[in-house]
């Protein structure tokens, strides 16, 4: 393998610095006792304390987590069942049609999803708020779960199911004791992706949330529109910390899982 030249190394370092600089910039000023992102006065944790003392913000934080967990859970159930169902569709043309339908929401821009769901919820008469946000999040997470689960299902050999059947397993047994354990890593990945999509979503939520309900992204947006507030910086510090833990946790879990399969 050829060694990287100095310019290449410099270039990579540059890209890395550019990618991380804004994030560390935000976190750096979250400890600023001055009120702005310009001159650093002295170290303080007041902005972090302010988050936990702000009841409204805490409610929004809890809302965000509840919506994320619920939508990830429900979309994982529907998506996994859907993927198993898609796999069993015999007609190839029909299966491909369903698969392209599945991908529509993945490639659709958020604004379109948000706007069309807004029309849908208003037409059906669902009040904008917790329920509409939850439904929207479930809706855009389902195709992601399907995408994560399907490769695992395709990987699974049919002889496993045949063997189970020959050994007298009922349909339920086949599902719960053969298929589900095999595709578990895919389900897990799907759940995790759905969780992060929900936590991260701004645009769709922005369209379908009413006045009374807000998630963290929407709140950050309205705070940022009002101007610089170091509370947002402190929030980014927390978000960054949680993200690192999630990414590392996910990485090690999948690593252990793949190793477990090999053993």
């Amino acid at each position, binding site marked *: 393998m050829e060694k990287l030249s100095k310019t*290449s190394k410099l270039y990579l370092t540059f890209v890395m610095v550019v990618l991380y600089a804004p994030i560390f910039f935000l976190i750096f000023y979250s400890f600023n006792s001055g009120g702005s992102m310009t001159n650093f006065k002295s170290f303080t944790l007041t902005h972090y304390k302010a988050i936990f003392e702000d009841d409204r913000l805490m409610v929004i934080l809890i809302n965000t987590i509840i919506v994320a967990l619920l939508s990830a859970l429900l979309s994982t159930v529907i998506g996994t069942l859907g993927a198993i169902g898609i796999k069993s569709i015999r007609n190839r043309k029909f299966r491909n049609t369903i698969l392209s339908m599945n991908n529509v929401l993945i490639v659709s821009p958020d604004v379109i999803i948000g*706007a069309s769901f807004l029309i849908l919820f208003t037409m059906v008469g669902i009040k904008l708020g917790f329920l509409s946000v939850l439904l929207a999040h479930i809706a855009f997470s389902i195709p992601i779960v399907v995408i994560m689960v399907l490769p695992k299902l395709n990987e699974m050999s049919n002889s496993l199911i045949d063997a189970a059947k020959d050994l007298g397993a009922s349909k339920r047994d086949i599902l719960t004791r053969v298929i589900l354990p095999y595709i578990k890593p895919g389900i897990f990945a799907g759940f995790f992706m759905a969780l992060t999509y929900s936590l991260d979503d701004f645009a769709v939520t922005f369209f379908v949330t009413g006045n009374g309900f807000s998630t963290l992204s929407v709140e950050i947006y309205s705070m940022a529109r009002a101007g610089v507030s170091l509370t947002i910086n402190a929030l980014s510090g927390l978000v960054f910390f949680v*993200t690192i833990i999630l990414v590392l946790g996910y990485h090690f879990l999948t690593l252990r899982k793949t190793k477990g399969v090999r053993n």
Partner: protein
Amino acid sequence: MKNKGNVFSLIPYYAWIILFVIAPIILVGYYSLLDLDGHFTLMNYKQFFTSVYLQMTLSSFWYAFLITFFTLLISYPTAYLITKLKHKQLWLILIIIPSWINLLLKTYAFIGIFGNKGPINSFFNWIGLGDQQILFTSFSFVFVSVYIFIPFMILPIYNSLDKLNPALMDAAKDLGASRLTTFRRVIIPLTADGIKAGIQAVFIPALSLFMITRLIAGNKVITLGTAIEQQFLVTQNWGMGSTIAVFLIIVMFIIMFLTGSKEKGEARNGKTK
């Protein structure tokens, strides 16, 4: 027969397709034919093809093109160099982590960085350029968008580069190809799928993002996404908003169709050659 149980497992999934995939598209189409009072009309389409909207559409495309171009320009070499590194998995995770940080927080960071007293302006002052207005310009919009999309472009390109068989590069070298020729005639064509996936992942969102324009570009840049948000949530003219949405959906399908059919064509060419 064999999969009777599976038919039931598909019921919630089919319900989802009908309710959240098909119905919304139909509803957007339906609303695009309504005026403010709910009467059927083609006025929205007529209005869309006036110079105001066409100009906005063109400029939105232009910005999306610029953003995609610069993102690709930065991402391709990065992805290429990462595949050459020893701990490439670790580096890839390092690239991915910023993409997991909430989009709004990253955008918000630039309000501080590009601000009048921010580090960039301090630097300009230091080298004697004096204060420059960076925030609320089209430059800041393109820069922040490129910054946000880089990881999404690197990922698919990295995947296709990583799959590349190194023997092909050696073969090209043995057959007398220069480094540039190898890159142009071997590496690029073989990673075309990754590039296309990256372009798809950047171009469509670049047409429709509205929070970056709102926070960073002030009202200097209006993309299709900004216009839709404006019509739906500010002006409350859902008809016009839907008309723009219909247009964006059509563009989306065209882009998907183009990248899809090209992929097949190239695969065929590759085989016959």
